[in-house]
């Protein structure tokens, strides 16, 4: 299928997001769409699939002008869209999420759950993954939710598959599975629009790269004819010399010691230490329990046994409040449900955990102080928004993530836990976050960074802790950390 978008413009209120974008997808190609956070990539795809209406411009499919009414309409015309912000029904099972819009019926016209389950299992086998089909979607990890979305869309037998940052929530192994599938689809003549902020992926998997900036198409080039430097230049309008900034901070004395931390069925006997100014990377496969360990450490989830020693003093953490009082900050992996209050302004989201510190005369919030506080943090993190008075829900995915980080940097933590901090963030902003991490550590903040991007873990950590099935498989020093070594440990090998 050949899709041509020409002169697409779109404004939300007075915010002109797309200003005459052109985009051409040939059949059977994997076409990367890249751009900074807020460049308008998701919006463009939303327009293509009928979720938003363009203010002007035309869409043609195989030469014929089209206008889809909604996602389903687009699906029926062979265009599948795996959304960036997961579109799931948290209250329904994984199986139902897969089939809700295309239910298989038996000869009486009733829904045939058995058959649907069989079909789902077949599809999962094809791809080489397993999904907990009976489990309630809301109880699944983000990775599983993402995989479900992917599987659902693959089952549509679409001629065009749009993937908006599909790998953001996936680990290496699932990502590889996804790439296999992409290539199989390509061989069948399916075209794929692939949106990602991960350079290596794009350069390995895609045939063509289109870069957007500020609502314009900057360039469209075959992959062979361009390079990372060029793409970054097109994206951010400047060159970014090195991907990961050099770690110059030398970790100091031990600040945190976790011993025998356990929660039956989730993680067991987790022990590690963290030093002042250190970045401890945490790697592992999807479902290994990294998130769970961090949540328990921060008091969001319970733990059954184990001790936490902070600067030589034992502390009890049972609620996030305890953790915050002890100087912890926690950037959760799921920004939509645990990171942001979608309807609150950017300003209020950033100041949320710091409110009591923003009071003048004892108990009343000083709004000038609050505004200044939030504005400074938003600026520091490079949140791209017309105004910080806007609801956080209106921001692009990456910018939402920056707001969450700003919020936690604002409490001036001495230990900051980051769970997938750069998920969905563009190269420029990623670099900003890495710089920020370095800056924080140089001021004595210690960081625990859970990440599924191995290059990031290796590039940014002083030490890497590998989690396998709820246990610590090992902790390796930065100098000894290679992708192979970490993967072996993460998969349970020696």
């Amino acid at each position, binding site marked *: 299928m050949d899709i041509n978008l020409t002169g697409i413009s779109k404004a939300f209120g007075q915010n002109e997001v797309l200003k005459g974008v052109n985009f051409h997808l040939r059949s059977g190609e994997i076409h990367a769409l890249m751009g900074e956070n807020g460049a308008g990539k998701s919006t463009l795809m939303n327009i293509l699939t009928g979720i938003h209406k363009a203010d002007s411009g035309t869409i043609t499919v195989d030469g014929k002008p089209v206008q889809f009414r909604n996602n389903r309409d687009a699906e029926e015309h062979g265009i599948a869209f795996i*959304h960036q912000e997961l579109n799931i*029904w948290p209250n*329904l099972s994984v199986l139902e999420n897969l089939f809700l819009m295309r239910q298989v019926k038996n000869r009486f016209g009733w*829904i045939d759950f058995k058959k649907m389950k069989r079909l789902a299992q077949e599809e999962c086998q094809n791809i080489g993954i397993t999904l907990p089909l*009976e489990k309630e979607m809301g109880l699944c990890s983000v990775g599983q939710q993402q995989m479900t979305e992917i599987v659902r869309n693959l089952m549509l037998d679409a001629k065009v598959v749009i993937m908006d940052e599909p790998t953001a929530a996936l680990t290496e192994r699932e990502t590889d599975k996804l790439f296999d599938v992409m290539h199989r689809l390509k061989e069948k003549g399916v075209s794929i629009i692939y949106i990602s902020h991960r350079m290596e992926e794009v350069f390995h998997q895609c045939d063509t790269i289109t870069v957007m900036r500020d609502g314009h198409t900057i360039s469209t080039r075959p992959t062979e004819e361009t390079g990372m430097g060029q793409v970054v230049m097109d994206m951010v309008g400047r060159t970014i010399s090195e991907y990961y900034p050099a770690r110059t901070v030398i970790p100091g004395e031990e600040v945190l010691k976790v011993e025998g931390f356990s929660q039956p069925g989730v993680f067991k006997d987790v022990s590690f230490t963290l030093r002042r100014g250190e970045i401890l990377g945490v790697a592992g496969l999807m479902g290994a329990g990294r998130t769970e360990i961090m949540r328990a450490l921060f008091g969001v989830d319970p733990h059954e046994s184990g001790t936490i020693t902070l600067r030589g003093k034992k502390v009890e953490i049972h609620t996030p409040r305890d953790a915050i009082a002890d100087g912890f900050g926690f950037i959760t992996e799921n920004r939509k449900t645990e990171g942001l209050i979608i309807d609150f302004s950017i300003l209020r989201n950033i100041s949320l955990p710091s409110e009591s510190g923003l009071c003048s005369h004892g108990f009343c919030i000083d709004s000038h102080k609050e505004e200044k506080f939030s504005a400074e943090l938003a600026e520091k993190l490079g949140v791209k928004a017309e105004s910080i008075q806007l609801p956080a829900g209106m921001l692009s995915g990456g910018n939402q993530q920056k707001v969450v980080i700003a919020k936690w940097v604002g409490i001036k933590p001495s230990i900051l836990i980051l769970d997938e901090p750069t998920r969905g963030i563009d190269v420029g902003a990623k670099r900003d976050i890495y710089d920020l991490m370095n800056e924080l550590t140089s001021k004595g903040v210690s960081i625990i960074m859970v990440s599924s991007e191995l290059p990031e873990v290796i590039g940014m950590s002083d030490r890497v802790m590998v989690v396998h099935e709820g246990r610590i498989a090992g902790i390796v020093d930065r100098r000894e950390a290679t992708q192979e070594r970490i993967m072996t440990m993460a998969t349970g090998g020696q």
Partner: protein
Amino acid sequence: MNALKAKNIIREMGPLIGLILLFLVIAVLNDSFVEPSNLRNLLRQVSINALISFGMTFVILTGGIDLSVGSILALSSALMASFIVKGMNPEVAIFTAVIIGTFLGAVNGIVIAYGKVAPFIATLATMTIYRGLTLVYTNGNPISGLSDDPIFTGFGQGYMAGIPVPAVIMLITFFILFFILRKTPLGRQTYAVGGNEKVSYIAGIKINMVKIFAYAITGCLCAVAGAILTSRLNSAQPTAGLGYELDAIAAVVLGGTSLAGGKGRIVGSLIGALIIGTLNNGLNILNVSSFYQQVVKGIVILLAVLMDRKKS
């Protein structure tokens, strides 16, 4: 996975266990409670609230609420009675009333879906409007002198195979709705809309249709309940159904359905209605003073939900 399933089952059994406990306690305190004739009474008494709460289950699953159920019941029952008095064949009158109830419910749904009014306030408004219309239509008087037609009187008072007709209607309705919710796309979409409206919209579910259906079916069931009531009382009361919304909502929530929408089961609502009915019947049989009855009823409801609290 198996442990999870077992846990799920226990969780789902919560309300049933509550009902059984309640049953046992009352039976121990007074044996006339378990006599077949009383159980028949109980079923008959429960049927009206149960029918309404079946509809309410759909509404609550979509994330809505319907306060106008009692008023729909009263208005459709008044119209039905006046049709009969004016000489319409009772069965036709019942049928017409059910159509009218469905229409009144659909109006709620339309205001909520297309008018984008919060369900609570929309149905609060239609609750007073429909009640007012009932009073205007009946001039505040009950309509009596209805038919002696055996089908009509049987509708509320009769028995089928020893089971009261209202209970039979309740059970048949239950199975149909259970089936719709479990096995048809419409039913699954009811859950989907309540679980995540935005995603449902993007996915192409006709969310307005799903909502209107939920309110319409509720209106329809209110009219059926109204017909049963009219037949039982052999008259239509302008004040019929006052406060029924609270009993219906209580039944649904006792049954484990979340008021946030998207999660719940209609079996639960049946059990919830049985708990409330058993409580009313039992407290009468035990001769608890009417002032204390309210206290006891509130406490039992609270205990039942606390036992089952992990949802919501």
